């Protein structure tokens, strides 16, 4: 028999909050984490604003040994380890220094690429004929799976330890992979999440593609404008989100706090066929992903209370709303609430899905819908499709039962997860 899977721990390292409490407060109050970045300006970026988590050396020092801190130059690993360990602790799980690993616990912690600053440093050393000077820290900090390897070593995980990578769908996909592993009885506890580096070398390629806004270098907090008529490209972000997934049986047995239930979901690809390309989504695939996710979770479209969209603040936002509308096929007056966290934190690339899922779980468990910011001038193409009341611009306190989260990524890939409030008796 399949296990039911619940969420028992959250951790986050976001541009507008680096603890769950700080983040929860920020998203309720529409607080932006987007700031001007002097390094991007110095390097002639078109977009000179971004969202990065603010961490003191003292905070980082709580998660890494002095030896690990020497030569540590991977922001992705730092964010991932902080979010991951915080989620573990939030779930009431302890870190044991046993000789034997915890065979029933694992992690799927994704990234696009991490340790890019370390990689740059290593490449420069090699080209300067100083290969010997690389030392032992380059491989572990630049391998894509560095983040899951660091987390696993700290927690003593003995089940599957892996890093998934599926562009901007990475975070949502990590949750579904962890969910499947527990559902099918192969693991009891899985730490799911994803992380994304900060800085010019990770964001440069996007800047060159002209997909980031260049119109808000002097008013950073207004720069990320999902669903707005004046949306002019996304604002890059970074950070990590982490969620402890656990079998319901295990959570009940250890009397853990249960935030919500993962009911199911789906991942697919548009195959870069039809209207799909490397960078543009195939609408048929997006719609199918949402529909199959609902079917997989046993949820009807009319039961959805809130959609946490991908909605990056590009011209594609209206297309995404249209895809949701077609996929759900609801009467015009009963479209659910929809929000995008990217207005506050920008597009955290590989970390976007996991950070946005942490926000979604907080909404479900505490009963609120965070406000969309920077869309006071809603895009008319969107308001032609759905009622403006579906796009809240102020905080709403109300119990919600079903929340759907979707993320879409380069390569024409999609992920959609269905979360449900866990009824506490």
């Amino acid at each position, binding site marked *: 028999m399949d296990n039911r899977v619940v969420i028992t721990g959250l951790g986050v390292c976001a541009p507008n909050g680096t603890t769950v409490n700080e983040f929860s407060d920020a998203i309720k109050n529409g607080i932006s984490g987007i700031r001007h970045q002097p390094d991007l300006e110095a390097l002639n970026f078109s977009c000179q604003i971004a969202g990065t988590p603010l961490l003191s050396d003292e905070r980082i020092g709580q998660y890494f040994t*002095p*030896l690990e801190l020497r030569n540590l130059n991977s922001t992705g690993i730092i964010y991932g380890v902080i979010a991951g360990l915080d989620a573990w602790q939030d779930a009431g799980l302890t870190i044991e220094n046993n000789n034997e690993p915890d065979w029933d616990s694992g992690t799927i912690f994704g990234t696009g690429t991490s340790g890019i600053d370390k990689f740059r440093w290593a490449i420069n050393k090699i080209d300067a004929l100083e290969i010997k000077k690389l*030392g032992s820290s380059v491989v572990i900090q630049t391998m894509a799976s560095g983040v899951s390897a660091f987390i696993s070593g700290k927690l003593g995980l003995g089940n599957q330890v892996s890093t998934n990578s599926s562009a901007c769908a990475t975070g949502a996909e990590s949750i579904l992979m962890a969910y499947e592993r527990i559902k099918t009885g192969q693991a009891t506890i899985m730490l799911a999440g994803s992380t994304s580096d900060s800085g010019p070398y990770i964001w440069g390629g996007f800047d060159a593609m002209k997909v980031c806004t260049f119109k808000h270098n002097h008013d950073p907090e207004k720069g990320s404008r999902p669903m707005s008529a004046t949306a002019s490209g996304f604002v890059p972000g970074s950070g990590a989100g982490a969620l402890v997934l656990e079998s319901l049986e295990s959570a009940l047995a250890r009397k853990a706090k249960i935030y919500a239930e993962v009911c199911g979901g789906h991942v697919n690809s548009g195959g870069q066929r039809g209207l799909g390309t490397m960078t543009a989504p195939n609408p048929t695939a997006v719609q199918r992903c949402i529909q199959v996710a609902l079917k997989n979770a046993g949820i009807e479209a009319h039961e959805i209370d809130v959609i946490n969209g991908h909605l990056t603040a590009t011209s594609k936002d209206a297309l995404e709303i249209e895809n949701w509308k077609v996929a759900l096929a609801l009467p015009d007056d009963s479209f659910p609430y929809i929000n995008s966290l990217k207005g506050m934190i920008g597009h955290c690339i590989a970390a976007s899905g996991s950070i946005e899922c942490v926000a979604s779980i907080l909404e479900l468990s505490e009963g609120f819908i965070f406000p969309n910011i920077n869309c006071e001038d809603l895009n008319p193409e969107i308001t032609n499709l759905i009622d403006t009341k579906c796009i809240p611009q102020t905080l709403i306190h109300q119990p919600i039962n079903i929340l759907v989260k979707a993320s879409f990524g380069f390569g024409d890939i999609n992920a959609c997860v269905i979360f449900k409030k866990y009824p506490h008796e």
Partner: protein
Amino acid sequence: MNKEEIIEALKTIIEPYSEEVTALAHIDENTDFINDLKINSANLVDIVLDVEEKFNIEIDNDSMAKMLTVKATTEIIAQKLEANAGQ
């Protein structure tokens, strides 16, 4: 620099790589990096880099392979220092 001075300097280099408090406190010529100090073998290359920097010497691959104990390491450092002094 005499042998005792080299060992003293080496102690400071090695300390961050080992969590064996007792063994660290009793470092002598016979101390083995992996068996006694439980140093992760991947970190041996980092110790060599630190040694190169501290003593301003260069350590070749053959010498590096021998640097598994305080005794061998001290001897290699002394040799390289001597070679430098003779230049």
